[in-house]
């Protein structure tokens, strides 16, 4: 086992274990902070998939933006949330959770089944990319390529997403403002 593989298994394990902790934990604060760990481990997985720029963006946007927003909303929505969470420890909850467990496990089995039957490493376009040396190597710096691509080949989706982001932020500010006299 090489170093890269060991790192991959470590990161994958941390991702799935902290995800499971989010699912099982009854404490909202702990699950929010475990979400932080999941996001960091996912950034590590992106680095191992040779997408370092996406990994940095993940840390900046998710950890710096989304997680802080979630913590803010959690603090602003007050003590009742915490009080509710303390009461949840009865046995009925587990019976209620049974359909969800069943759905998630069955969906996982279906996806794994598809995955093993398809043999993704032997797909024609992937074989073609390997034959034409179209794969990203460990020494390639892709950031310049992504930047040029954003301004040329992907200009229309880039503009569309910037307009959508502006609309979403204006909408969020409009929703959360104080209303007078309605």
């Amino acid at each position, binding site marked *: 086992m090489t170093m*890269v593989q060991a790192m*991959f298994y470590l990161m*994958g394990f941390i991702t*799935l274990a902290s*995800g499971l902790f*989010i*699912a099982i934990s009854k404490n*909202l604060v702990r*699950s929010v902070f475990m*979400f932080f760990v*999941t996001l960091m481990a*996912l950034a590590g*997985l*992106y680095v191992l*998939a040779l*997408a370092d*720029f996406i990994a940095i*963006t993940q840390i900046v*946007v*998710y950890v710096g*933006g*989304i997680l802080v*927003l*979630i913590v*803010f*909303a959690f603090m*602003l*929505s007050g003590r009742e*949330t915490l009080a*509710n969470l303390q009461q949840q420890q009865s046995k009925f909850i587990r019976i*209620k959770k049974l*359909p*969800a467990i069943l*759905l*998630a*496990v069955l969906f996982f089995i279906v*996806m*794994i089944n598809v*995955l*093993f039957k398809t043999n993704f*490493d032997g797909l024609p376009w*992937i074989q073609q*990319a390997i034959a034409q*040396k*179209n*794969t*990203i190597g460990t020494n390639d710096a*892709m950031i310049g390529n*992504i930047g040029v*691509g954003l301004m040329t*080949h992907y200009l229309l*989706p880039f503009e569309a*997403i910037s307009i*959508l*982001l502006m609309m*979403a932020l204006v*909408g*969020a500010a409009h*929703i*959360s403002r104080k209303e007078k006299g309605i």
Partner: protein
Amino acid sequence: MISLSDFLIVSAGLFCIGLFVTLTKRNAIQILIGIELMLNAAILNLIAFGKYDRFTNSGQTFALFAIVLAAATTAVALAIILNVYKKYKTIDPDKTDQLKD
């Protein structure tokens, strides 16, 4: 090197955990976290496939777009959650079941 299907297995597991969190939690913020987990599983798939596209970088570029979309979604969703809390004094989706007051 790590094969493609290893990434896909991790991503499938993460997606199912996100699905489970979304279905079981009784708090709007935790449901939002579950949705973010599912989005992250999709982004991991995009990046794992994007390794085989060096010249146009389509996988990585659309992973960037997906991250930005997730940020916009979260901002709007949290604004809605705060408004719901102001009106109902709870953010349990089972209890906020009235359109009129």
